[in-house]
């Protein structure tokens, strides 16, 4: 049965036709009748489609789940990747040419909640956690336009290869400002200064190969003594630092000035660029090259000389961001090979991640060990998308922000804000283990659930309150639940309906038991209270935080 359903999802041959209107009384039944599938099979189909939607969008909702069932998974992924990329800049600048960070967040939420190219938006968010800058940096805090432009650059980078994106990131003024390669001058023997090593170090450690050598399967390589192998040494860092010298802003005739063009790629100030030859990872970059020729050569050396580390490192990271926190090494390997063999094509990587059997079925060796915790922003977005349709359905294509950020206070409420991590290391350490599961793992590799790093009691309460105040308590947003409840269904039937629409069956049976008991405490016509109780429980329960394979292998 599972195989049959998987084939259905994979090959897109589910001849389910257009999804029928769900009967409010018996959710799903009319749908099942058109498909000829038994009820249990249909529920399994919806569970799977919702899990996949949670990988590839900002949260499964009825429309996307039906679309996935309708077209099949592979076709859905390809259709998503073929959509035009929805940038943030146009909606952030609808009412101003000098957007603030609030307009950035407004545009970000608009795209997260309502952009049709959900997969681009999810991948873009993942990339923004790899190529980290912070809107709080002194150079960037008053210049949100460059931060938004940087985010759009990442989104557009999905339609290209990793090496080009790495190059564009390295020459983006926001990145150069953030990691101080902007106005980094070559060594001055008279003053005794040397080139700033900040970007040089991070471009290797965080944006490409990582400090320690990896296999393509993401595992760390070791030498004969079982010790980690360094991908570069301090001399490499010093040489790399000489590459990133002589970087200045366009439209700015004076070296060192902050005013200038923060939207165009940086330019070279030749008198400050170190054009001597450079020895990097055992290779030589010849003397006399321009800044941009030097950057091309240096990044090329990383990719050529440390290709397996780049492939294993980045593939593992993207798998963790999109699908599973603890991928089996074979999953990482399969993705890394596809990625590297496609000349580092990002769409090929994304496809390989989403269409892998381990993503669809869970880890082949132990399904109970797969899954992922949602980040705070994804938790809110997922619940919001499942409960309420975008407020303004007329926005297609999007012409402006749906949110001005005052209702969400993104910078404060979530303990996570787009392009606003506390440090260049991102929102959380990738290998963070929550206390309750330390020491558990498969073989010698212990489980990590890095997203748990972002949760504390204050922001869980705050985000839950946002769902309560901004969504669940808004009667217009929950009208379809009210319609079902007032049509005369039992508390049990209503619980089935809510759990199907919010979690698509991805939950433990206990949740339904608790929900029915909760609704039974209310008088039979306390409709508003019942709707709110049910939605609150469905969005603030253990199941609402996670992507899990509930069925055992």
């Amino acid at each position, binding site marked *: 049965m599972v195989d049959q359903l998987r084939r259905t999802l994979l090959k897109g041959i589910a001849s389910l036709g257009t999804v029928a209107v769900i009967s409010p009384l018996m959710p799903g039944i009319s749908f099942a009748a058109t498909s000829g599938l038994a009820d249990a099979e249909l529920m399994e189909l919806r569970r799977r489609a919702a899990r996949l939607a949670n990988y590839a969008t900002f949260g499964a909702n009825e429309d996307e789940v039906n679309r996935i069932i309708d077209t099949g998974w592979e076709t859905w992924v390809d259709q998503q990747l073929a959509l035009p990329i929805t940038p943030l800049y146009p909606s952030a600048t609808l009412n101003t040419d000098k957007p603030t960070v609030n307009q950035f967040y407004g545009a970000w939420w608009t795209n997260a909640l309502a952009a049709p190219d959900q997969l681009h938006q999810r991948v873009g968010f993942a990339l923004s956690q790899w190529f980290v800058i912070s809107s709080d940096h002194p150079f960037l805090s008053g210049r949100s336009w460059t931060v938004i432009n940087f985010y759009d650059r990442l989104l557009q980078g999905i339609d290209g290869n990793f090496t080009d994106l790495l190059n564009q990131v390295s020459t983006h003024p926001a990145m150069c400002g953030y990691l101080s390669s902007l106005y980094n001058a070559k060594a001055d023997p008279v003053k005794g200064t040397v080139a700033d090593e900040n970007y040089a170090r991070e471009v290797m450690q965080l944006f490409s190969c990582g400090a320690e050598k990896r296999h393509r399967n993401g595992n760390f390589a070791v030498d004969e003594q079982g010790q980690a192998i360094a991908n570069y040494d301090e001399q490499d860092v010093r040489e790399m630092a000489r590459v990133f010298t002589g970087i200045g802003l366009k439209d700015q005739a004076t070296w060192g000035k902050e005013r200038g063009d923060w939207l165009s790629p940086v330019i070279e100030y030749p008198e400050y660029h170190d054009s001597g030859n450079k020895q990097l990872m055992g290779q030589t970059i010849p003397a006399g090259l321009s800044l941009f020729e030097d950057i091309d050569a240096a990044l090329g050396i990383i990719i050529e000389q440390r290709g397996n580390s780049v492939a294993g490192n980045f593939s593992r990271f993207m798998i963790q961001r999109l699908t599973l926190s603890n991928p089996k090494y074979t999953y990482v390997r399969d993705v890394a090979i596809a990625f590297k063999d496609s000349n580092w094509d990002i769409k090929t990587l994304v496809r390989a991640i989403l269409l892998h059997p381990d993503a669809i079925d869970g880890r082949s060796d132990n399904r109970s060990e797969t899954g992922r915790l949602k980040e705070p922003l994804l938790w809110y977005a997922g619940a919001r998308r499942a409960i309420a349709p975008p407020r303004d359905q007329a926005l297609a294509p999007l012409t402006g922000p749906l949110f001005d950020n005052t209702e969400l206070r993104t910078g404060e409420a979530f303990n996570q804000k787009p392009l606003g991590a506390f*440090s260049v290391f991102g929102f959380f350490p990738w290998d963070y283990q929550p206390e309750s599961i330390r020491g558990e793992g498969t073989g010698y590799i212990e489980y990590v659930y890095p997203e748990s790093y972002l949760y504390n009691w204050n922001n869980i*309460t705050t985000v839950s*309150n946002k769902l*309560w105040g901004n969504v669940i308590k808004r009667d217009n947003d929950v009208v379809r639940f009210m319609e079902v409840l007032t049509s005369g269904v039992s508390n049990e039937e209503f619980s089935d309906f809510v759990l199907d629409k919010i979690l698509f069956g991805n939950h433990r049976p*206990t949740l339904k038991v608790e929900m029915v008991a909760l609704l039974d405490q209310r008088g039979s016509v306390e409709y508003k209270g019942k709707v709110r*109780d049910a939605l609150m*429980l469905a969005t603030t*329960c253990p199941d609402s935080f996670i992507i899990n394979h509930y069925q055992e292998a």
Partner: protein
Amino acid sequence: MSAKTIVVFYMHGGHDGYNMLVPLDQYDRYAHYRGDIAHTESSLIPLGIGQGNLAIHGNFSRMAELIQAGGAAPILGTGNLIEPTTRSQFDAKSVALPPFLYSHSHQQSFNKGAYQQYSGWAGRVLDAWYAGSNNVSPISPAITTGSDRDLVSAETLDVSQITDEGVTWQGLTGGKQQAVTALIDDDSYQHVVERVARQVLGTAVDGQQYLADLFGQFSASGKLNMGTTIASKLIAAADQLGHDRQIIHIVTPGPWDSHNNQFESLNAAYANLDNLFVDFIDELESYGVADNVVCITASDFGRGLRPNNRGTDHGWGNNHLVWGKPVFGGQAIGDFVDYDDPDYWTGAKRLIPKLADIQTYATLARWFGLSESDIDVIFPTLQNFSRRDLGFLGA
């Protein structure tokens, strides 16, 4: 020994301390430079302290009383400095200066002690105090009641970010909370990721309940705003939290970045603030915990003396306030810099500070009981200045 608490009222955006304090003996020069945004002489409240016959803005009547009663003091001519600086040294660039003077983000970061560090001075003070201790309180003593964590960010300690939204779980009351608690305890959630989710949610339910119970013991007057209400209850609960030192960052309601409409907007802000500052102490007294609390104002920078059209632009040196029961008030700390002093005004009429803000902060750190060597680590440039203690907390 009872708990000591420092409360920092941060005025984000750069408060114009020259709008707050005026030496009446120089009123003509003040009126000359300030023009349309000058306050009338009769509207100012004389304090009878400091050289030049210092007066405070008319909307600070309760603060004026507190100063006169010895419970508060102005700190004059203070700001971000790396080493003592005069106009000629500034012009010749012969001394080290805080980078990017007049930039909000740079100066705020510098002022919070976060310049070139991923922690603030308050966080480092608490790190030093709690070093080696076994504090297991669920709430860290490094507290912010708003979104801004920089000042209290520490190397070792966590930051407690506490807002009213986090204390009150609006939607999760009664039966819903019981249902969630039942799920957290339900072992059918057995997969690894399910157990992690139960832990995460369980921490929230417990933590929220803990604070709700803690705060529920204290009956607020209702006069305070969100930040000061939370601060007052945390101070009252310090013993239960196991905290003998706390630092609390408060976002001070402004607005302070008064490029425009300064006269009206600061008048309104001060009227609100005068009550907030003094009501806060009254609230602590009602809980019986005011004796070891010191409050200070802090800001990015002061503002230029000369107005632009209807406001003022970013400046440098500033005037601040310190108040609370332990304060040796009724005196001016530092000198009000003469409006025409050629050594301490830049060409654009921005004050060059005579005191470094870190001298104020180091005075507080010493009051906390930190060693001189700890203080030197926390404030690496303090040794550039002759006075390590400004005396407002006793000798």
